[in-house]
């Protein structure tokens, strides 16, 4: 099969790509060029993924499309797309009948993880920012109602994900993931690895030093609700999935709050499981919400009048 793999030709200016609203001065607008994204002095550079660096092949009849805030290279196999809003790069294959799909990945998941790690390092992600990698498993099953012995699930493949750390602080909203097939080709991938401003790193240091000092720790923790468990210092930023809000970067004391899920009526006999919600406290101990957590579409989509069912009348 002949494949075409063209570079993204049209790379747009992003007026709002990098507005670090919480903790960082807004740098000049950046040009969305694949490769290293420069940071301010003392900050950590980011990485912009592009088709040139990618091992994803869009297939034949490759052509460029730019619409709805995305720049895409589309082909017979799939599409490689870059968000012109925040630089998120994603590549997904076209859906096809299962009989026509590539064979599953049959090697060890550790091999897959190593392959993904090496792939993204070669592509240009700064190696010193990779804090680790882990792998998720894809499975499937099928069957028929009443089948007394349904076939066991099949393992179809893996997705491996790089974890980011800057100066030792996790940056959990940055991500680089890929799914490979047996032949070393990329089935799908996604990369969002923005530059981290120096102010966010400084604030992370501030939180860390407050927590390390007996007197300052007490002052800081006094602002965090007492019923929460201990947390960890992290650098948080706007989600890759957010396609409206600007990039905000925030040093945070992240705490996982667990709330017990509901029980059903009188038959409830066991305690509920815990739903987790991550809460963020900045260097001043003030609770913050990330842009994706502040989202509310009520203005764009005002609530319609709701009528009860006819039996209520």
């Amino acid at each position, binding site marked *: 099969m002949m494949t075409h793999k063209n570079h993204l030709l049209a790379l747009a200016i992003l007026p709002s790509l990098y507005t670090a609203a919480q903790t960082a001065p807004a740098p000049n607008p950046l040009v969305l060029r694949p490769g290293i994204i420069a940071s301010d002095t003392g900050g950590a550079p980011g990485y912009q993924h592009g088709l040139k660096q990618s091992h994803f092949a869009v297939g034949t009849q490759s052509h460029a499309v730019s619409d709805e805030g995305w720049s895409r290279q589309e082909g017979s196999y*799939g599409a490689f797309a870059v968000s012109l809003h925040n630089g998120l790069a*994603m*590549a*997904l294959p*076209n*859906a*096809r009948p*299962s009989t026509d799909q590539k064979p*599953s*990945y049959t090697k*060890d*998941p550790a091999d897959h*993880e190593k392959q993904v790690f090496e792939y993204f390092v070669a592509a240009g992600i700064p190696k010193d920012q990779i804090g680790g990698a*882990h*792998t*998720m*498993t*894809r*499975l*499937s*099953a*099928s*069957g*028929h*109602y009443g089948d007394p*012995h349904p076939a*066991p*699930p*099949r*393992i179809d493949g893996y997705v491996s994900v790089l974890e980011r750390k800057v100066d030792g602080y996790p940056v*959990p909203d940055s991500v680089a993931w890929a799914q490979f097939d047996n032949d070393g080709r990329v089935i*799908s991938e*996604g990369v969002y690895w923005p530059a981290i401003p120096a102010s966010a790193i400084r604030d992370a240091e501030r939180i860390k030093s407050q927590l390390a000092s007996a007197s300052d720790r007490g002052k800081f923790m006094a602002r965090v609700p007492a019923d929460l468990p201990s947390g960890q210092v992290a650098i948080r930023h706007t*989600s*890759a*999935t*957010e*396609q409206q809000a600007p990039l905000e970067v925030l040093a945070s004391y992240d705490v*996982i709050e667990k709330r*017990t*899920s*509901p*029980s*059903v009526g009188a*038959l409830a006999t*066991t305690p*509920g*499981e815990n*739903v*987790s*919600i991550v809460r963020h406290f900045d260097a001043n101990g003030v609770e913050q919400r990330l842009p*994706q*957590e502040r989202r*509310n*579409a009520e203005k764009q*989509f005002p*609530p*319609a009048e*709701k009528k009860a*069912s006819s039996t209520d009348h």
Partner: protein
Amino acid sequence: MKLLREFSKRILILAGGPLIALTLVAVDAHGQSTGIVVESVNNYSVRNGPSLNNSIANGDGFLNNMVFFTSLWHLNNRYTDNLVWDTDFMDSSVDSSGNDANNFDKPGTAISYFTGHGFCHTNPMGDGCSTGQSCTTTTACKTPNTSIGEGLPASCRFSPFDAPRCCYMADRGAATSGSSDKFNGVVDYTSGAIRWGNNGTNMVVLDISCGVLPTFWYQEFRNASAGVHLIATIMTAGGDTDNVADRGSSFALGYRTNIRSSVASSWLNAMNLLPANEGGSCPGGGGGHGFNGCGCNIVVAMDNSSAAAVAHMSENWVDIQNDAKDSKGNNWFDAIWQCNYPLKSTNQTAWELP
């Protein structure tokens, strides 16, 4: 051509007013559903608490990435908090209190998304493992505790968190806290008055705790499958769902990236962009990605033949609008899922000892 037609249609609606809008309704009635329904609950003050932080942001993230000028979709319903009622999900042909035809299963809907609590580990919607009987084979599991809602089939289930033990089928449900709830806010889709897809929707997303438990990915949804192409939800394997703000928006990125990509696969990919380090870890390596502990995003399809069920998994974002692809039965199933931990490819007994 379909994309061009859709775009032109929207331009005409903007320019042409009610007459053209009627044309859109007619198009929908003839087999193309482009509506989005989102029901999100943060405020559980009426019942089924505690309240949550991120459900509305989560549902609206899905909405924002799907419904915008020139997109393929339009909003059919958006309800939040106490305006989300348990009757929204129930079919009036089964229970006269039900009103899904005006809400979650509204005609002309392609995708219906609920985000809020699910019942989890609390009987009668528990994990089905109350007997605590250890096992080496599923055939040894014969004694469900029926008094707390467990029943057959059984599974000698294991996970990274749990040694093999007998687990049984138990109903699953979503939780509402509505001002007009009729069923105590319990949306029991395993055996309640739920028939999704017979009125409108082609895909249901239940972004909740314990949407389905292994290995009953089929049995727990068969009752609810009445024409819907795909049902996507969360399957926990020890631990629970994180109430995150961006699972919905991450799912919709499948559409934004490649309109020809698999909708089912996009639900699995939704995990990939969610933070890895949030929530508790999963033993053996893993965790995060929308879970506190071990868990999976899963999609189930049902139809009247194996081939038809499998074919739903290959539907792209245009196919999911096509009412001609509605399921015509629920006796065959296909399921795909992605878990936030590694399993050896040589291990073909994941989840259950046969």
